[in-house]
């Protein structure tokens, strides 16, 4: 794997200029998680309106893979229905675990992270934001009596 294949320009771009960084004042999901292996940390904020993701932001620090992955995630999730968001998260996880999902096209730019597969230790970095989102969504639904 060459440097260019792994550290694709789009990853570096999101790392250097993260999108949706900051806090949301009124968030339905607000969750802090970290990756004890490398010290990566994230605070995720999601605002849900009418079953759709009306706002999403994050704060945190960590390696380029985790930060770029989260930044790209926030862009993607914005405006999605809960179900579509959950589906996307699972598709992304499947790709990172080497499963080659059928709907990989839906991932768009996120496919840039595929190279991380080769570094199993780093897969956890790429998944940090997504796992935090899925966990947050689950608690949100339980709180609101929706089927998990």
């Amino acid at each position, binding site marked *: 794997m060459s*440097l260019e294949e792994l550290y694709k*320009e789009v990853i*570096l771009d999101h*790392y250097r200029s993260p999108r949706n960084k900051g806090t949301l004042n009124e968030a339905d999901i607000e969750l802090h998680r970290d990756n004890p292996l*490398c*010290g990566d940390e994230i605070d995720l904020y999601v605002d849900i309106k009418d079953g759709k993701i009306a706002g999403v932001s994050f704060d945190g620090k960590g390696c380029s893979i985790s930060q770029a992955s989260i930044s790209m995630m926030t862009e993607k999730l914005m405006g999605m229905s809960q179900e579509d968001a959950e589906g996307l998260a699972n598709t992304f996880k499947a790709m990172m675990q080497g499963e080659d999902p059928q709907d990989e096209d839906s991932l768009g730019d996120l496919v840039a992270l595929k190279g991380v597969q080769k570094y199993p230790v780093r897969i956890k970095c790429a998944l940090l934001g997504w796992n935090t989102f899925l966990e947050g969504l689950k608690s949100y639904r339980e709180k609101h009596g929706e089927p998990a």
Partner: protein
Amino acid sequence: MNANEIRKDFPTLDQEVNGHPLVYLDNGATSQRPRAVIDEIKRFYEEDNSNVHRSVHTLGERATLLYEGAREKVADFIGAPGPRGLIFTKSATEALNLVAYAWGRHHLAPGDEVLISEMEHHSNIVSWQLACQDTGATIKAIPVDVDEGILEFDKLDGLLSNRTKVVAVTHVSNVLGTINPISEISARAHEVGAVVVCDGAQAAPHIPVNVVELGCDFYVGTGHKMCGPTGIGFVWGREEILEEMNPFHGGGEMILDVWMDRATYNELPYKFEAGTPPIAAAIGLGVAIDYLNDIGMKAVHDHEVELGKYAMQRLGEISGIKIFGPRDADRKGGLVSFSFEEIHAHDVGTILDTLGIAVRAGHHCAKPLMRKLGVPATTRASFYIYNTKDEVDRLHDGLLQVQKTMQGGLGL
């Protein structure tokens, strides 16, 4: 000694990684093995393979002689008075736990203190934490002077008291490279009647070791960091202490006789070696020690000091880098830990790997020290007998590339 000649003995080094000749600078995690060690393991399995000790057949006798021969080599290598105090384990971690269980669980009590240091590896921290949980003793730690990268030695007297039952300190730090003054620590610890456990996992591979001069009561090492196989470590202990100690694991070989409800135990060192030991790995370690002795441990250390000096100089040229540990390469083992303010250690490690350079990025199993240094992780380049100045240059250039990638445009 000539690192370029020595390299030829290590088959793993002769490969490309990601299209670049491999630069292996992760020796602190594990070293490579010379052909002599690999070949002896193969030969043993092909010709002499058998269980040890209780066999009366020819293969069994051959295996036993080789296994016991390895014990003598290890004992000699660390200057032990004899092989009876030399116990084989599977790793330095198991060795430290053996002491924490077989000595610790039967000698610690509420009010007692275990004194470690802030630069210990988790194996020399958590093993004692578990012993303290079981016995009610408490842990204290000799602080680290972050600027100097050494133990705050003047704090030692304040920390030692007649409550101190164990002083467990690393000989060489796996993060800072610091060589600790074990003989002074032993002397002071013995004044208050404490037992001294020295973690030599990062020392035995790199500097001459003499347990008698160090004055410690237990000395721990591991094969895989000193040209030997994985799955073999050792603890040397003073025979008087080992004699009166409880056994650790119960099983075959450690007994004299067994009844349903009780047993009598074998003599040293077998009392502490229950079950089939890692026979091939022990024999391989014996060959590794022959190999290191042929080079000479003084020469090994000199080579690493030279590389360490050169690395500190070249890495010091890089803007924004922060280097941890003693500045004086003479006073430390051949490794350099560093970090960049704006770049995560994992990105450093991964990008260097794409350039064929293997380093360690992470907390190095020393989280309390990371907290003290104020970083979540560092990058560590650790050297061994086969590393060269050219490789240090490759590291230097690789780090410039890391900065370019992470901070600037790609500009490749």
